[in-house]
Every structure is written in C-alpha cells, then in structure tokens.
C-alpha cells in the first residue's frame, strides 16, 4: 500500500490570518470558487452604492439645481425634512411633538440603563400618564391650540399609529389568548372566531373596512376621525396576532404551574396575573417584539386610505414638481430609517432574551 507508506506532512495551519482564511474561505476548490463569486458580487454591488450614497452625493444647497454631482441628491431630503418628519403640523406648534419625544427619550433611556431604582414607577408613568400627556399635547386642549389629525403626518404619524397599535393591542391580545384557552366553550369559541377572522384577512382589507364600514356602524351624528378608524383597525389586527403568540407561551407552561397555583388556593385571575402570565410572557418576548416589528412595518399601509405616514409623505413629496425624479433618494432614505427602527427593536429583543434567561 503506497498510500500508507507515504510520509504524512505537517497538519495544515489553522491559526492566524492565513489559517483563518484557509479554514473559512478556501478550504477546498468549490469553497474557493464560492469565495471568488462572493467577492465579485460585493465588487459589483458595494462600490457603486457607496459612490452614489456618499462620495458622489450632493449635500449642500437649497434647490435641485445645486445637485450637480452624479450621486444622490440629499438636498431633496434636507429641504423637505420638516414635512417628512412632522407632516403638515403647524410650524409654531412643533415644540409640542418634540416635547413628547423628549419625555419618551428620557424615560426610555432611564429604563434601558441597568441597575436604576424606581423603574416600575417610570414604566407605570409611561403606560398611564404619558398617553394622556400625548393626547393633550398633540391634539390640543387645556389652553393649547387644537391641531386636526388631518395635519398629522410623516414619521410622527407612523410613530403614533405604531405606538398606539403596540400599546393597546398587547392587553387585548392577552385577553383574547386567555379567552381562547378558557374552559368555557362559548368564550373560547367567540375568541377563536374573532382571532381567526382578523388573522385570516390582509391588513389592507381591514383598513378598507375601517374607512368604509365603520361609519355605517355608528349611530347618527357620531363620526370618527379617519385616524381613529385606522387605529382601531390596526389595533384589532395586531391584537389577533399577539393573541396567538401569547397562546403559544401559555401552552408552553408546564401543567404543574397551574396545579400548584390552584393548590395554594389562588383564584383564576390571581393565578394568571401572578404565576402564569409573568412566566409565559417572558418566554415569548422575542415573538412579541417580532409582532411589534411587523406592526411597525405594516403602518405604511395606512397610505391606501389617505393618511400620510412616513412612506406616504415621501411618496407625496416626490410628486412635487420642484423635486420630480428624486424617488431613489426618497426610498433609500425611508428604507434606512425603517431599517434602523426595526433592527434596533430586534437587537433589543435579543438583549432582553439573554438578560431574562434564568436558565430554565
């Protein structure tokens, strides 16, 4: 056997830069081929993109005539920034939106910093008092001039719809999930039907329903604002999805937890609130945040019923005769902003998952 007699060479080096390259990129001939293909792909994609976005782009100026370079014309975004971020909200009242943002930012940062006291109070403030502040500050009242919701728009409107949708849909979703798991057949059946109907149809039909059918459902003289109708639609839609996520958590709970809480004499609601829900919600946090990301992305659909959210306003600004032909810049900017928000949420969810992991 000549192969056995052949001298065995030293093992292939696996340390250092060369070792890493050999192990991960050039381990055999088809891997090397794949690497070269990948490098080529990056070569045809990345340099033109970087050139367009940064190197050849136009940053300074005030009209489209200042866009003399070949790359992107970011002046388009710059000049319309107020519209894109706040919609048609009156300029002298913008401080109200910024004030709300500031409160949110401060309490958010406070909650994110580890090992601070009174986090529960800050959380309660955010959930109970902050919404009232928002309503008063944003739509007017208590001496503040009222601002109609048709003037709301841009990123601000997107955040309002997503925020309200997220905050209100979670409790409704939890109730629906409990209802679906209930031992009472009528309650369980009603909740199942409700959940399955909302989950079975696309959001766009829900929004069409909200804008066309809700007015028919209401008694004489009661007329909901278009924004509120959309909010109700988004809220029920995402509540149904959250209900299924929460149900997954409830089903994953070991039976012993239910039996133990009943054995110590807890009533149904106490058992749920003190034992079952805290544990099962913790289990499904990543999935819940996944649903939040979905709601956030789905808020873009409100533009089909004539609300100008972030994407809607960018679409609208692009039709301005002074700025025709800059749709690429608009879409890239919108994509970047949406991406940052969604990626931040999923990053936070991973962090939370690690932190809350008690090693069950």
């Amino acid at each position: 056997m000549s192969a056995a007699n052949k001298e065995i060479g030293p093992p292939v080096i696996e340390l250092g830069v060369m070792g890493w390259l050999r192990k991960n990129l050039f381990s055999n001939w088809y891997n090397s081929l794949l690497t070269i293909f990948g490098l080529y792909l990056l070569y045809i994609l990345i340099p033109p993109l970087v050139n367009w976005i940064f190197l050849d782009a136009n940053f300074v100026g005030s009209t489209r005539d200042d866009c003399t370079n070949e790359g992107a014309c970011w002046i388009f975004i710059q000049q319309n920034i107020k519209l894109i971020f706040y919609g048609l909200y009156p300029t002298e009242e913008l401080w109200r939106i910024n004030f709300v943002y500031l409160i949110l930012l401060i309490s958010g940062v406070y909650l994110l910093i580890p090992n601070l006291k009174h986090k529960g109070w800050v959380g309660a403030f955010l959930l109970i008092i902050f919404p009232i502040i928002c309503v008063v500050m944003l739509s007017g009242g208590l001496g503040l001039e009222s601002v109609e919701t048709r003037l709301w728009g841009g990123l601000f409107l997107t955040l309002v719809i997503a925020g309200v949708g997220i905050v209100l849909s979670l409790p409704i979703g939890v109730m629906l999930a409990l209802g679906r798991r209930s031992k009472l057949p009528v309650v369980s059946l009603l909740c199942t039907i409700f959940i399955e109907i909302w989950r079975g149809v696309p959001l766009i039909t829900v929004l069409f329903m909200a804008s066309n059918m809700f007015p028919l459902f209401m008694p004489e003289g009661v007329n909901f604002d278009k924004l509120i109708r959309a909010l109700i639609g988004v809220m029920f839609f995402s509540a149904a999805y959250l209900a299924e996520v929460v149900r997954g958590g409830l089903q994953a709970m070991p039976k012993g937890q239910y039996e133990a809480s009943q054995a110590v004499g807890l009533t149904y609601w106490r058992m749920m609130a003190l034992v079952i829900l805290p544990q099962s919600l913790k289990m499904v946090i990543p999935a819940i945040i996944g649903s939040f990301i979905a709601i956030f992305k789905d808020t873009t659909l409100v533009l089909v019923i004539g609300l100008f959210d972030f994407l809607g306003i960018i679409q609208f600004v692009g039709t301005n005769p002074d700025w025709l032909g800059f749709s690429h810049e608009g879409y890239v900017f919108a994509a970047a902003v949406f991406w940052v928000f969604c990626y931040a949420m999923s990053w936070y969810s991973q962090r939370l998952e690690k932190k809350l992991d008690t090693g069950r």
Partner: protein
Amino acid sequence: METDKSKIGSFIFNRSVQGIFYQLVTLGLVALGIYYIVTNTARNMLERGLASGFHFLGVESQFDIGMTLIEYSPTSTYFDSFIVGLLNTLLVAGIGILFATIIGFTVGIMRLSSNWLIAKIAEAYVEILRNIPLLLQIFFWYFAVLRALPKPKQSLELYDSFFLNNRGLFIPDTVFGEGSSIIFYMLWLTIIISIGIFIWAKRRQNRTGERFPAFYVSTALILGTFFISLAATGFPVSFEYPELKGFNFKGGVKLIPELVALTFALAMYTASFIAEVVRGGIMAVSKGQTEAAKSVGLKQNLILRLIIIPQALRVIVPPLTNQYLNLTKNSSLAAAIAYPDLVLVFAGTALMQTGQAIEIIGMVMGVYLFLSLITSLIMNLFNRFMKVDGER
C-alpha cells in the same frame, strides 16, 4: 331556613353554575353589540339610500381592467370583475411563491455554508430585506426601477427573446401546433407509469431490501418519451418571439410592469423569511443523525435524502406554508401600485361604483379567510401524517 340558605349558597358558588352564568353574560353582550351595529347600519343605509343584497353582481360593471386572464369587457358583470380580480391575485401569488421558495431555500442554505463570506452575504440579505416594509420595497421596484427603465426601443434584452422596458417584461410565447396533443397524452402516460414504478420499487425494497433507482429510471422515461414523441410528430411546438414594431413590442407574452414589480418585491421579501425557516429546520436536525447515518454506511446523497431532508421538512413545512399564506395576503398591496388584483378591482373600483361596502368587503375578506382556513386544514392533516409514533 338554615338549609335553604346553604342551598342557595352552594348554587351560587357552584363552579359550573358560575361558568354558565358568565357564558350567558358574554353571549348577551356580544348579541347586544351585534344588534346595535346591525340596527345602526340598517338606519344609516336607509338614510343614505344605499342598496343592499347581492343583486349588483349580475349588473354590467361598465369599467375595464388593465390585465385579464379571462374574457372581460366593460359589458361584463360585477361578478366577472370579481373573478378577474381573484385570478389576478392567484396569479401573482403563484409566481411569487415559486420564486420566493427558490430564493429562500438558496439563501437559507447559503447561511449555513462553511464559507464565511457566503454565510455573511446571506445574513446581510436576510437582515436588510426583512427589516424594510414590503410596501416600500414594492414602491422601489415599481417607481424607482421599472418605471425608470428605457423606452421599448432601448430595451434591455437577453438572447433576443426576453425584453425588459418601461412597458413591462416581454417573453416568448409557446405555440402548440397540430399534433401536439399526442405529446401531452404521452407525457401523462409516462407520469402515471413512473408513479407505478415508485410504488413497485418501494414494495420491493420493503420485501427484499434491494433498492431500485426509481428516480433516475422514471426521469429518463419521461424525458426520453417526451423528446421521442416530439421528434416523431415533427416538432409541432414552437416559440413566438416578441418583436419591436413601431413604438412597442408585438407577439410573445407581455407581463405588465405592475405584475413584475409586485412579484419581484413579494418574492424577495418573503424569501428573507423563508431563508430563516429553512435554516432553522436544517439546524433542528441534530448532528448525531448525520453521524449515525454515516456509521451505518449510507452514502452522502442518501444521508441527505433519507435522513436530513425528511426530518428537516417536518420542521420547515408548517412555517413555510404560513409564509406562503402571508405572501398571498400581502399580494393585496397590489392596490398601491394599481395592479388589478382582487382588492383593487373589487374592493376599489366596484365598491366605488356601487357603494355596497358591506357585501363587497365581506366577499373579499371571505376569499382570503377561505384561503387561510384551507391552508390551516391542510397543515393539520400534514402534521397528523408526519407525526412520529410515540411523540407528544
């Protein structure tokens, strides 16, 4: 007296009595809510002079639709427009699912590659695409890419047979000449024979343990018969290529830009989710399975086909169907770029003309609900079928 009181007490605090009481209350509240909505709606409709019922379905629609798979004209009925919209929705969903599956499986497997660069490129694809709203992606492909393409005269072309320009994508059409029906009959016949071969091979393997290369034999049979019958009948199948005549293309199949953009965006977006599903499924098959298969002497391709793929599919298929359903529901975003799908044609134009919001939105929602229910039914059957005995 004493006993009476305790009787009432035990009646009130009885678990099942309480249960019935709560259920009656819930039922009553729901019924009250529905009654409230129905009476309000009836009065509102009366006041606004809105018609009700489904008579409108038989009425002439008086509008045209940009893309139809069946015969349709403004003299057709509203019901015809419903069917046209439904078929357009199913078309875009079907093509979207096909491409999303191909891209999704490719990217998902790429993410598991031992090649660092390839895995990172796949990861970047997933992380970028799934964190950007679908509607934005549809707008991008439609307004920023397809509408910005050159005019027909300067079309992008591939092999002189595929043309892409701002009027849409033009692809060759297949023309079936005389005698081509024989080829189809032969095709069907060989497919049936192949199924027979598979069943026979399986039985023989169960009985004797010998394997029969059923896959290769039946592939050879189907392709061989296909080409032989093609040659024997004198190649009755030909292609009609699109040609530039004047300012536009004639001949071939025209895919309108709305369809191309929508399919593209749906496929790319859904593929990023499918990739994660596929990755999760393959990772769920424990390494011991591969090692055990190797140690009993199975060859690499058999390990993949008999051990890994069947186990991975059990994990992959349910969420994959869910993604297909999501894609179908997301195809309703067509309305935003005016692709004539069910929502745009029926819940848009037809609703605007007739004003019968309840019936129309009910029908549209019903279609999507029906699709969801069918899918979950199939999924339940699949799960029952795939369940391993003794598993929870």
